[in-house]
């Protein structure tokens, strides 16, 4: 006897199949959790550092050895993790870690979420490499923390990061781009639709998604959205029409249709906006690339070692040499960071 409802056998019941299709979207998507058990911790000082005492009735006295075990639930497990949780301090209001209200302070473990409502803010230590301040209306998750690698997922809201670590150690993923700290201070905002805005105050941030990269220097910003990924970075002191037209260029990037936006940007870019033009070389349609190269060359001459043909075919070495001529910082150090020899 077949019973589709019980075991999926036989002819699908249309109502059951319809409910499977609808309700199946609610299925748990959380990855398999693993734990790190760390003998030696003895205090119960928050919900995630837990002591387990001897006396597991069916386990016998051997369990006494596990008298103190710090249990960390995470998306991944790394034996090298010095501490798979971070300190969190309340600035104002009552943020939540998981479903538990945070009073005064506590710790956030890998895999847990920190949520602030409209009346609360918090600050967390990023291991020992910096701090992140979380504004109102924010939800983020601690994805991973281990020696040399720390990752948050910002689902919505705003965070301000201040990191004093070598490039590449602190990463924040958002629904539409991933921000990799290159040693700096920056703010990152994510809207409810997954779009966002990165503002860099000090240093650099690499903003990436699906192979599209933006390298955002101090004093510059980059928008991002689910369709196009990281937008073309521009300095914050660019005038409003320039910024607006650049946004139009980014919005048309997927279809390579820019309208008058590209012409406006190329015509009105300042010398300082060479950084923006450099990013546009690889983003515009091939037919428009020459005009971008000309506009950039008019502001920052092409190095003598670089050929126009190499740039037009997006030769990485040629682009990097021209980037170095912009006077911002040499490309080699972040290339080295991305692809260590």
């Amino acid at each position, binding site marked *: 006897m077949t*019973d589709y*409802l*019980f*075991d*999926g056998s036989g002819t699908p*019941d*249309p*109502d*059951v199949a319809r*409910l*499977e299709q*609808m*309700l*199946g*979207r*609610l*299925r*748990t998507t*959380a990855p*398999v*959790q*693993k*734990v*790190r*058990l760390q*003998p030696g911790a003895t205090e119960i000082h928050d*919900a*995630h550092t*837990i*002591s*387990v*005492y001897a*006396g*597991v*009735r*069916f*386990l016998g006295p*051997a*369990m006494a*050895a*596990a008298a103190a*075990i710090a*249990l960390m*639930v995470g998306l991944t*497990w790394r034996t090298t993790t010095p501490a798979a949780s971070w300190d969190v301090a309340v600035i104002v209001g009552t943020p939540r870690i*998981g*479903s*538990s*209200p945070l009073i005064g302070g506590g710790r956030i473990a890998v*895999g*847990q*979420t920190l949520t602030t409502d409209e009346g609360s803010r918090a600050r967390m230590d990023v291991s020992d490499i910096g701090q992140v301040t979380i504004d109102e209306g924010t*939800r983020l998750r601690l994805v991973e923390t281990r020696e040399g690698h720390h990752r948050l997922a910002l*689902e*919505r809201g705003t965070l301000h990061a201040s990191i004093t670590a070598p490039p590449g150690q602190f990463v924040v993923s958002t*629904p539409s781009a991933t921000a990799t700290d290159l040693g700096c201070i920056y703010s990152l905002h994510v809207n*409810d*639709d997954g779009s966002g805005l990165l503002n860099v105050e000090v240093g650099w941030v690499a903003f990436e998604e699906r192979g599209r990269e933006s390298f955002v220097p101090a004093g510059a910003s980059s928008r991002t959205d689910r369709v196009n990924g990281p937008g073309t970075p521009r300095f914050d002191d660019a005038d409003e029409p320039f910024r607006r037209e650049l946004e139009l260029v980014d919005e048309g990037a997927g279809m390579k249709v820019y309208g008058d936006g590209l012409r406006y940007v190329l015509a009105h870019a300042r010398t300082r906006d060479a950084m923006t033009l450099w990013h546009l070389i690889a983003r515009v349609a091939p037919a428009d690339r020459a005009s971008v190269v000309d506009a950039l060359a008019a502001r920052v001459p092409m190095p003598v070692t670089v050929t126009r043909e190499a740039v037009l075919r997006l030769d990485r070495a040629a682009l990097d040499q021209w980037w170095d001529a912009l006077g911002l910082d040499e490309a080699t150090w972040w290339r080295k960071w991305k692809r260590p020899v």
Partner: protein
Amino acid sequence: MEHVLEIGRVLPAGDLLTIPARTAELTATIRAMAAGDQDAFARLYADYARMIHAILLGRVPRRDVDDLVQDVFLTAYTRIRELRDPAAFGGWIATIARNRATDYLRQAREHVELPDDLPGGEPIDAGTFVVLDIVRTLPEAYRDTLLMRLVEGMSGAEIAERSGLSPGSVRVNLHRGMKLLREKLGWHGHD
């Protein structure tokens, strides 16, 4: 009022042959977890997370379900010494989940309750949440079993193994729950 089946223990003869092996394996896994074996914890999580997710989804706003699943496993870990019979792990952790949901709802009364469909994840149409709300009105045994089947994609046999119910009880809960759900949805299919 609908009759809700009690937990049954009558199993088909075929299943009886494999029960000792499965029980021994579960016992070994729980012992290993309690002794600090991370992989053992991960195995238990992988085996039982969908059941716990379904139980919580039937009771609390979706947005908090993943966090509460973690809470449940953390609680289970710290209270593992209370579990006298490892074979009863499924029913035991399910009870922890139901109690955790009750605690959550008690606390939530003091706060503004978040709707299920908050932005931030993949978009889900409103009709799905309407159906979920109706499932949540079903008697507990039907609700939990249906959500394990329809949301988590667990088979009846798997639900039985994880929850400690007999396959017969799961089958009856599924069909009675489905019948009741059809009535509430105004669907007129057969069962």
